[in-house]
């Protein structure tokens, strides 16, 4: 190699080395850019719109907290919040109760465990639109369960919640629990399988009954599974939209209106974009209050990974 060529060769190697240093960041950058624009930029834009007097189209006149004041003055929004409160608490509670029970029962050396597990879980693969369609007709008093009971001779049987303003919200709970309780079962079952059998055997030798075994030892050890189930179900409940549209369309009247359906109708059909954006911001805050502490805890736990 001649003396003149030397510097060129080193600088080329240098360039290659520097490129190798930057390549990983270069590969990651489109995704990061997309996330910053489509997630965080869009959140900022929606937050901004919620402080403007936007109607059918975005406008940029600042109105301060007017939209939020109007939002919480609207009976439709308070109804949606109350409905969400009822729906979310029952949905989470019943899904966890059924999921835990099925998991504990399935864990007792049941012969057809695999088949049963597959049956419990398949609704999770369906779209909420399909689930809603199926339950809409099952719950319809004219052709559904009520009609069947009448034909089987139980004339006085009544099950017309879906047409009843006071009861319709519970039909939403039934369909949603049907869809996701199997998933909760799978989470608890994985938790149960992780428990060391030696602990259980030791407690049995000490004379603990099955009931107290589960209450005192097993269920407390399932704490992480409870937490995960709660977080997943709570954020699903706040985001619920498809199921309401397919099952009840928000009715009868406004009986099953939830924040997600409120946001959509105020933004896109009633042309109250400012109020719609404000309702979306409240929904985001709801989800964030559940998810952020969870992510924070999980990331601290996984510090070394």
């Amino acid at each position, binding site marked *: 190699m001649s003396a003149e060529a030397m510097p060129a060769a080193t600088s080329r190697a240098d360039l290659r080395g520097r490129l190798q240093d930057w390549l990983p960041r270069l590969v990651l950058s489109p*995704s990061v850019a997309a996330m910053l624009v489509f*997630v965080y930029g869009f959140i900022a834009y929606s937050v901004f719109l919620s402080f403007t007097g936007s109607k059918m189209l975005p406008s940029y006149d600042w109105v301060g907290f007017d939209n939020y004041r109007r939002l919480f003055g609207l009976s439709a929004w308070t109804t949606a919040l109350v409905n969400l409160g009822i729906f979310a608490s029952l949905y989470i509670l019943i899904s966890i109760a059924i999921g835990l029970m099925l998991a504990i*029962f399935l*864990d007792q050396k049941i012969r057809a465990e695999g088949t049963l597990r597959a049956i419990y879980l*398949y609704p999770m693969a369906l779209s909420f639109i*399909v689930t809603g369609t199926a339950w809409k007709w099952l719950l319809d008093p004219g052709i559904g369960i009520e009609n069947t009971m009448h034909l089987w001779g139980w004339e006085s049987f009544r099950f017309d919640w879906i047409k009843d303003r006071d009861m319709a919200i519970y039909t939403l709970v039934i369909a949603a629990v*049907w869809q996701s309780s199997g998933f909760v079962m799978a989470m608890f*079952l994985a938790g149960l399988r992780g428990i060391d059998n030696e602990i259980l055997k030791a407690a049995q030798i000490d004379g603990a009954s099955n009931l107290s075994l589960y209450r005192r030892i097993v269920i407390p050890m399932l704490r992480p599974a409870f937490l995960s189930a709660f977080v997943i179900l709570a954020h699903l409940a706040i985001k619920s939209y498809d199921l309401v549209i397919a099952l009840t369309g928000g009715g009868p009247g406004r009986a099953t209106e939830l924040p997600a359906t409120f946001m959509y109708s105020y933004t896109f059909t009633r042309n109250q974009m400012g109020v719609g954006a404000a309702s979306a911001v409240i929904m985001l805050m709801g989800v964030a209050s559940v998810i952020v502490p969870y992510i924070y805890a999980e990331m601290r736990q996984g510090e070394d990974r």
Partner: protein
Amino acid sequence: MSVATQTTAVRTGRIGRALIVTVLIFFALFYLLPLGVMLINSLKPLPEITGGNMMALPREPTLDPWRSAWSTAQIGVQATGLKPYFLNSILMVVPAVAISTMLGALNGYVLTKWRFPGHRWVFGLLLFSCFIPFQIVLIPMARLLGLMGLAGSLPGLILVHVVYGIGFSTLYFRNYYAAFPTELVRAAMIDGAGFFRIFWRIMLPVSGPIAVVCIIWQFTNIWNDFLFGVSFAGLDAMPMTVALNNLVQSSTGVREYNVHFAAAILAALPTLLVYIVAGRYFVRGLMAGSVKG
């Protein structure tokens, strides 16, 4: 379920067991009932449904409702059946799943094996983006798609699904690659292998299981999506879920329940098939989505 071999050491008596099995079978029936009812009634002529018992087996089984749902049912203003919308969904799902999975694999590789200052922040922000209620991005997304001329088109929908799918696909691959020995990557680097060479030759060959999990998850989510479809697809790019909802909710004419049931099963069929064929991976994906770290 990863450790589904060991069952509990708890012992139950004979009566206890009988009770447990009864409850388990009762719930199996509860989960099967809606699908069973839909299947049975999709094979009945309409009068048998409106004038009969939904639990009764069809007296004159017919495939007409299925034919109608697929090719002649009125959806919106057109009597095309679900066929064109099924095609839309396929054309939307395949590229969206492929792109988001590929990006997720590369991102996961960078975030575990080529760490840079602030990688935790990037991951935390990606993780949170998996869970946002999409209502918060609907208005700006509608504006942007309009400005880009992608409103009401398949490319627009694909873009939306890729963008909001990256979070989960990155999460899967990151957690999977985190368990892969970094020493092997270091050794390859010392031998002079570059960034992409290591990815192709070392990381991708071991990524089979997590790729299956990721593809199934993305496929199920994107196929089942309704909110983005109803907001951005317009009439031409309408996916299956939106078409099904339009069919079922349409208020004109006689309600053809049998056709609705056939249509609902058609809409559920692809994800159901995936579940039956690869249920193990499906469950693993669900669990990985709930247990991060």
